[in-house]
């Protein structure tokens, strides 16, 4: 038993480094996923049927296939199409493309909370759509979806563990490497689990806090 604790303590600094990469990857993925989501949400309301159909298929695919398959698709298939991305970029891209679909749905939900009169008023003032989205719709919707966005970030944090499969050295991959050197799978995976737990639990607390404080800005 004391031996186990030594193994865990020995592994902790290495795993901490992996956890930092996990955090960075997830932050990058949500930062890129947000514009993707906003773009999809705007395209969803396009006047062109083709655009709307594309968005529908995209979201259905992103939500209807496993993330691990999407990561493989981006990592293995893009090079065949002539787009050679480094591992890390491919991993982050796969996560953001996936996350964008969920964020788009979130924004769509948030849009229903904005009174129609505001859009009508913007139109009556002959505001261009771009201006209306930037100044009227998005500021309100983004405040509204802040709590669910942190939930999405938590999902990304856990989902980024799958990037170990394509060889990105984040927390889970570091865990695999530690298991290979120490031959102590139980201790290492428990420690890895603790690292994820601490991050996700802290984020859940942040979500609850945001849910309480942003209540003020809610129109419904």
């Amino acid at each position, binding site marked *: 038993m004391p031996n186990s604790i030594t193994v865990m303590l020995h592994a902790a600094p290495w795993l901490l480094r992996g956890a930092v990469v996990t955090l960075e990857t997830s932050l990058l993925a949500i930062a890129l996923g947000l514009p993707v989501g906003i773009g999809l949400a705007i395209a969803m309301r396009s006047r062109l049927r083709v655009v709307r159909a594309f968005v529908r298929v995209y979201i259905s695919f992103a939500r209807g*296939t496993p993330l691990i*398959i999407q990561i*493989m698709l981006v990592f293995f298939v893009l090079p065949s199409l002539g787009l050679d991305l480094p591992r890390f970029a491919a991993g982050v891209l796969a996560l953001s493309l996936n996350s964008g679909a969920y964020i788009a749905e979130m924004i769509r939900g948030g849009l229903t909370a904005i009174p129609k009169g505001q859009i009508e008023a913007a139109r009556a003032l002959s505001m261009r759509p771009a201006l209306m989205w930037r100044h009227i719709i998005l500021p309100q919707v983004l405040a509204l979806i802040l709590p669910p966005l942190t939930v999405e970030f938590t999902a990304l944090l856990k989902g980024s563990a*799958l990037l170990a499969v394509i060889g990105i050295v984040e927390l*889970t991959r570091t865990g695999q490497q530690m298991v290979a050197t120490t031959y102590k*799978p139980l201790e290492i995976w*428990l420690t890895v*689990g603790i690292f994820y737990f601490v991050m*996700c639990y802290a984020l859940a607390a942040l979500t609850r806090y945001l849910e309480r404080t942003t209540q003020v800005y809610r129109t419904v």
Partner: protein
Amino acid sequence: MDFDFSVVAFGLPILLRGLVNTVLFCVVALPAGLALGSAVALLRLSRRRIARLPAAAFVEIIRDTPFLVQAFLLFYGLPPFGIRLSAATAGILVLSVHSGAYFAEAIRGAILSVPKGQLEAARALGMPYLRGMRRIVFPQMLGYLLPALTNQIIGAIKDSAVLSVITAPELSMAAQMVLGESFSPVETYAMVSVLYWALIGAVSAGLMRLEKRLFRAAVVIPRTDTTRLPLSAIETTAS
């Protein structure tokens, strides 16, 4: 880039067998997860702390760690202690436990959506707790439960793809086999995506139909059956 149809001819039978295995995994793991989830949900709503705390801790621990790490812990962490599970058994086990925690939250939310007075009235009339849950609370919470459950079921099917990492023989494992033989990632992953997409589309369409049917069923319940409420009561809990 050309799409090589000979890879389809070679790989599709292997992938279809993988798809059947994925379905089998879920058919075993999801009911187990549902049973576990129901038990955990009831424990979390218990009056006694000693029942509530472990259930809450279980849900938090499962929800705040990645599925992949849970699979690794179970599959690689136990053999040094003499517990050796096959990849398929470990996969089904971890999928059941993981989905159980998410089901528990869906079920707990659904139970809480039914006004407390309903169960209290049943208890006051001398109905045992579990019978009151089954006859009074359960029918009323269905409208709330089914959409949440549909989401979690689809999530669990998608999670099952991760089990290929611990070499459980399901669809994405089959994909790796096809890829290893054919070296054609485009064709292989195109087929795999479409198969998962079709499976998940079919499951979600089926569950949505079930939802509609159950609601229609609620309309034709005879008025004399006082153990169930009219549709209007169910609709308010669903919104």
